[in-house]
């Protein structure tokens, strides 16, 4: 936490295309070991006949719903820009779909702080999708802080999985 972002979040979030610059500045003051990169997004599975195009399952399986964040950070990592680009493209293809982005934190933070951090992460995903052409009114955000881990061990592998933004289809999908 000592190396928390020096860049104003306003700057980071309002213009997704300059996130790279902000990220470099963060790394310059980072005194802790760099966080382990989260697992690379798996290659999109081939569309099978059992998954209805334009459905929530189509989005989850064939597009990918989750991006990851560095420790106490909320900038979109380069490795995740592909998946968010695919999310934006899928949302352009299915314009009736509405989504909610869940922001989550690892256990290394107090409850209220992590709620705020989760909100930052959810909003960062939303801002990126909006920068890729998704209308802002289609994207809600919700923070779960550290209350909904998907991995419960106290190690970097689990923490990296838990620091995540998950895009959930909430309406307008084919079913």
């Amino acid at each position, binding site marked *: *936490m000592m190396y*928390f972002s020096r860049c104003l979040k*306003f700057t980071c*979030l309002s213009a997704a295309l300059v996130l790279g610059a902000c990220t470099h500045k963060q790394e310059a003051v980072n005194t802790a070991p760099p966080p382990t990169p989260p697992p690379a997004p798996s290659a999109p599975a081939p569309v099978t006949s059992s998954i209805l195009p334009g459905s929530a399952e189509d989005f989850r399986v064939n597009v990918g719903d989750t991006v990851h964040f560095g420790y106490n950070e*909320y900038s979109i990592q380069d490795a995740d820009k592909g998946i968010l680009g695919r999310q934006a493209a899928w949302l352009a293809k299915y314009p009736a779909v509405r989504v909610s982005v869940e922001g989550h934190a690892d256990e290394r933070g*107090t409850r209220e702080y992590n709620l705020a951090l989760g909100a930052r992460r959810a909003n960062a995903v939303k801002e990126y999708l909006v920068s890729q052409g998704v209308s802002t009114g289609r994207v809600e955000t919700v923070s779960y802080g550290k209350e909904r881990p998907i991995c419960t*061990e106290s190690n970097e592998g689990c923490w990296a999985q838990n620091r995540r933004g998950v895009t959930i289809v909430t309406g307008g999908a084919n079913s």
Partner: protein
Amino acid sequence: MKKFLVLFAALAALWTAPAYAALQVDVTQGNAQPLPIAIPDFLGDPQVGANVAGVVRADLERSGLFRPLDPRGFAEHATNINAVPNFGSWRAITAQGLVTGQVTLQPDGRLRVDFRLWDVFGQSQILGLQFFTTPENWRRIAHMVSDAIYERITGEKGYFDTRIVFISESGPAIKRVKRLAIMDEDGANPIFLTRGDYMVLTPRFNPTAQMIAYMSYIGGKPRVYLFDIETGKQERLGDFPNMTFSPRFSPDGNQVALTLETGGNSDIYVMDLRSRAMHRLTTDPGIDTAPSFSSDGKQIVFESDRGGGQQIYLMNVDGSGQRRISFGAGANGTPVWSPRGDLIAFTRRQGVQFSIGVMRSDGSGERIITNGGRDEGPTWAPNGRVLMFGREAPGGRGSSIWSVDVTGRNERRVLTPGSASDPAWSPLIQ
């Protein structure tokens, strides 16, 4: 809770207390020398008399300041509460204090509880009180007896006649069910206030202990709600497009400080509960959250990462004069102002180690008072001498509530029905 108000205390003035009584405990010394005290079962109905005395013994023992003696060692078995005890027989078993009491069912159906507190060495009565209540209310009377004894001997207000609101947890960590629950300070009478079909977090009492402000995920939208304990009525506080969280009542109960997230940025506001007007206090692009009013209502302590890491800040209640007060190691958050006004309790985090600390309200005199590994979210007893907090077991194996004296001594697990976190201690119930 208003139904509990049909009780009153009156001084039983059969003996006037001599002023030289020296029976006292210094609460600032923790439990270094707990005071030996004899509390025989109260006379009258044997079951009720034993129940009341048992709760008083447990209360005083739990405080760490008293050592209730084993009743099996008592030589004297009084049959008349109005008789002067044989002090010699109590001195012989090292008792310094003696409590005698009696329970009587009144012709009108009420329960009457009398008790006397004796200074064994001073050979004098130093307190005598009488309570009336409905018979099912006997536990509250027992706690009030404990409070009276604690106050007479320590000079500090007791805290046994209080309640704890907390989050009851069940299920695996990845899908944990969190319910709002309330119980007596000793863990008795737990009641679930929500069913668990939506997550709830961070409950806080108002100054009359009638209302709880908390955060709920009803409808998938995390917002601050008010819960009226008497009516069970829940009400969303305001109508905001984004998350509201970390509520805390002002000392007069007329305002709630809370955090409103907008576009990913969390800032602190104060809402007036009558007009529902929101007044913004912070505008910083960092995270500003976890506000807590000073006991005089003039200042708010909160946490912010505006300086790079999560630290504790102070501001005037209008938002002016914002300044950092925590400079210790690691991250510091969840500040909570003591009801006495003298100290601020907080959570210290270094990596994955969480502990509870206290500091003076200017940030000086910092002391870390727990080392359980995952201790978070302190709450003060109304007398400012004891804290409760949540302790998480590693690996998502549940959590529990603990209490500790502000000295760091007398750490104890608080009885809860299953896993529990995020306790908030009520004020003294009126």
